[in-house]
């Protein structure tokens, strides 16, 4: 018996009903906020101090950037275990080119990105055209590129980098209004971003109304958007109090917006979801599934390379251990963000929030002085809890 077949008139759902129905989407955001409030209290306000907040972004930028690519790979029905090694390898490559060969910074960066894309193409080729499971191809890649970075660096750390390269990660956007502190650019950016969120929300509501889609109840929309915008303004204000907007934050935000747009609004994105949802049906619908799979890995390689550059720039040195076990954080972030192991499900915003949840947990627990042993245990349990929550929600229908 199909519930969908019962042509019942759409009733206006109560707020609680709506909240229960969309628990996962909002639950994630509220979980992040709750975790932040929790650590804010137990660290006596250290978490949200301007310096720490800035650090939080710098520390997690490379995870978030790779989570964007990983989400696409996972939505397409695959996995990439090699991103940590690729990231380390590209960092090492950058160090060798810039520090040892004294190549100019810009061409070196471009070459590194190309190298990342080529690595992605290499792995994507085996997965897409030879149908070798991505788990195996990228497990091999994980070993290969870890080994290659060791070889490149000859087991040593290589650094330091010139200032212009470090700016990738540790630079800040100057204050165009000349206020200094608080930083005017950061404040302006915060206000604009807030207004953008409100505008997009209103537009979506108007559309839902036009097509009679059951949207969220108005008071709920107001409260939710209010909380998000306030949190955003608060964060930007805090950043403005310190040194303004880190360059990394900008690239991260821009990439997030671009990838969210691609996945949700373009034919390319739609086809990736179709591929992950049912590869055979997608193929019979005229979708070039092999090429899409291939491109998902090329993209992943490119983003892993970018992450490697940012990470090397932040440490100001390339070490053989860079990126070690980072793939696990990235993959965890994507699954916490609601993606499904079987493909076809997941959102960019979810992956980013998932990465922030991991980041805040790391940061907060470090401030509290919790040992790395307990940190690992707690992060593991959070991952399991998040996915359990997904499965439980789904089984309830």
């Amino acid at each position, binding site marked *: *018996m*199909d*519930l*969908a*077949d*019962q*042509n*019942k008139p*759409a009733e206006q759902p109560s707020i609680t009903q709506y909240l229960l129905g969309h628990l996962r989407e909002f639950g994630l955001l509220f979980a992040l906020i709750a975790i932040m409030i929790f650590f804010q209290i137990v660290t006596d306000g250290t978490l949200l101090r301007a310096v720490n907040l800035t650090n939080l972004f710098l520390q997690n930028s490379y995870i978030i950037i790779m989570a964007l690519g990983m989400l696409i790979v996972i939505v397409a029905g695959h996995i990439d275990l090699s991103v940590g090694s690729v990231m380390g390898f590209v960092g090492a490559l950058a160090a060798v080119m810039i520090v040892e060969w004294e190549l100019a910074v810009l061409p070196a960066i471009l070459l590194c990105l190309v190298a990342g894309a080529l690595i992605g193409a290499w792995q994507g080729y085996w997965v897409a055209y030879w149908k070798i499971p991505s788990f195996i191809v990228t497990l091999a890649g994980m070993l290969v590129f870890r080994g290659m970075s060791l070889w490149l660096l000859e087991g040593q750390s290589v650094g330091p980098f010139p200032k212009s390269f470090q700016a990738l990660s540790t630079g800040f956007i100057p204050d165009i209004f000349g206020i200094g502190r608080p930083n005017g650019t950061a404040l302006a950016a915060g206000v604009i971003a807030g207004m953008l969120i409100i505008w997009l929300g209103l537009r979506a509501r108007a*559309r839902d109304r*036009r*097509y*009679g*889609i*059951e949207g969220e109840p108005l008071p709920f929309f107001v409260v939710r958007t209010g909380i998000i915008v306030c949190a955003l303004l608060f964060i930007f204000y805090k950043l403005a109090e310190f040194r303004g907007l880190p360059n990394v934050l900008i690239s991260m935000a821009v990439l997030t917006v671009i990838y969210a747009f691609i996945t949700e*609004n*373009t*034919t*390319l994105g*739609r*086809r990736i*979801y*179709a591929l992950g*949802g*049912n590869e*055979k*049906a*997608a*193929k*019979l*619908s*005229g*979708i*070039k599934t092999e090429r899409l799979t291939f491109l998902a890995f090329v993209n992943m390689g490119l983003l892993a390379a970018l992450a490697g550059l940012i990470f090397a720039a932040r440490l100001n040195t390339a070490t053989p251990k860079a990126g070690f076990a980072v793939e696990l954080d990235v993959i965890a972030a994507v699954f916490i963000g609601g993606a499904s192991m079987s493909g*076809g*499900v997941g959102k960019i915003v979810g992956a980013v929030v998932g990465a922030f949840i991991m980041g805040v947990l790391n940061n907060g627990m470090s401030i509290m002085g919790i040992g790395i042993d307990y940190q690992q245990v707690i992060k593991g349990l959070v991952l399991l809890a998040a996915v359990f929550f997904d499965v439980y929600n789904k089984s309830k229908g």
Partner: protein
Amino acid sequence: MQPLLEMRAITKTFPGVKALDEVNLSVRKGEIHALVGENGAGKSTLMKVLSGVYPAGTYDGDIVYDGDVAQFRSLSDSEDKGIVIIHQELALVPLMSIAENLFLGNEIAEAGVIQWQETFRRTEDLLAKVGLKEAPGTLIDKLGVGKQQLVEIAKALSKDVRLLILDEPTAALSESDSQALLDLILELKDRGVTSIIISHKLNEVRRVADSVTVIRDGSTVSTMDAHTEDITEDRIVRDMVGRDMAHRYPERARRAGEVLMEVKDWNVWHPEHADRQVIRDANITVRAGEVVGIAGLMGAGRTELAMSIFGRSYGQNISGTVEMHGQPVDTSTVTRAIDAGLAYVTEDRKSLGLILDETIQRNITLTNLGAVSTNGVIAENAETQVSESYRKAMNIRTPSVFQKVVNLSGGNQQKVVLSKWLFAEPEVLILDEPTRGIDVGAKFEIYGLINKLSADGKGVVMISSEMPELLGMCDRIYVMGEGHFVGELTAAEASQERIMSLIVKD
């Protein structure tokens, strides 16, 4: 005769919907009882109540089995009493042998060590009972669906079955396999096994059933006894749909226009075994406004032919030409085939036709995203308009196009698949088993739709295992033997007998 099973006033509610409303079912000892009704009428729910999938206490009413009120709390409870249900989706492990499957979960073992000799010996006995000559060590993978079905029955026999429930046992079987299966069920009856058979195929019901119970919208409509009254198909259909269905196939003005598509000298080899030719020298012509049928037994290569034409989605070393309007076209990839004006509606809508976890809207627009986007950016408003228009035109019963496809009934899912392919704006549609597994009402709607397509000047190729459907719908029927055409009949010439004799003489 005393009833073996009596289900009295069974009521089962799910949140927001009453699936069963005081259903009564009485099955006599040693009879074959057919349970019929449209999809979603509540047949499967009733059987789940009976077999303990919905445990006692979650429904109202009584199950009286063999004189006692039964309280089944799980499948194994009901199996202990000799009630075995065989589902439409077979529950066999493909990469295990017949013997291993037969005794799965019920292994013949001493102290946990499997006694293979005894296992094989008993397997041979059981296989003999169902008329299978396969070796007990044969992998399930290597058997066709028909034989797998027999293995399922053998498995039921291994459990000392008293009441055998078969859910659409012949849905995926060819004509001859179906006949063999029905014969077996009749034979089991002689040996004292009582059966409940759920089926859409009314001719089969008439052939084997001693009594028929019709369920509609969660209630019992009627129970008929074949020994005391004449059960006609018309009467069953009337009870099933609650209205007279004078014509099962809607009328259509038949006028074939110019030649639309022509496939010439089509040859295909098996994708894995390069030496096995699957399609041999096939030639097809489809005219505008024509409905062309392809008849044949399961395994004759009809689906393989269609899929190899449509973007070489099947096979290797494909040779031959496809022409549209007399011009050769490239159909070497699915995209090119769509561009050439072809569409292929798969027989397997769940795994090949739909993305079940996506919305109706996203499924419909998938074949032609370009039409609702500019520079690769999808215009969601346009997309919603398109899918809404298909929802109305195809009468897809759903509260909104934002429902996930997985929540729809089979008939409505099929309408989504058809919408999706109509949106690709094809000139020739190849429909592979377009009415498989959907109920009588939805079938009628799909026939109406096919007629409308032909009235619009499209060419339709219809592959079907149900011969009456081909005879009722097609202007011309190609008959397919093993991988090649063995005959071509016009609507006037064609009859079930002629089609069968062409196949048999191959």
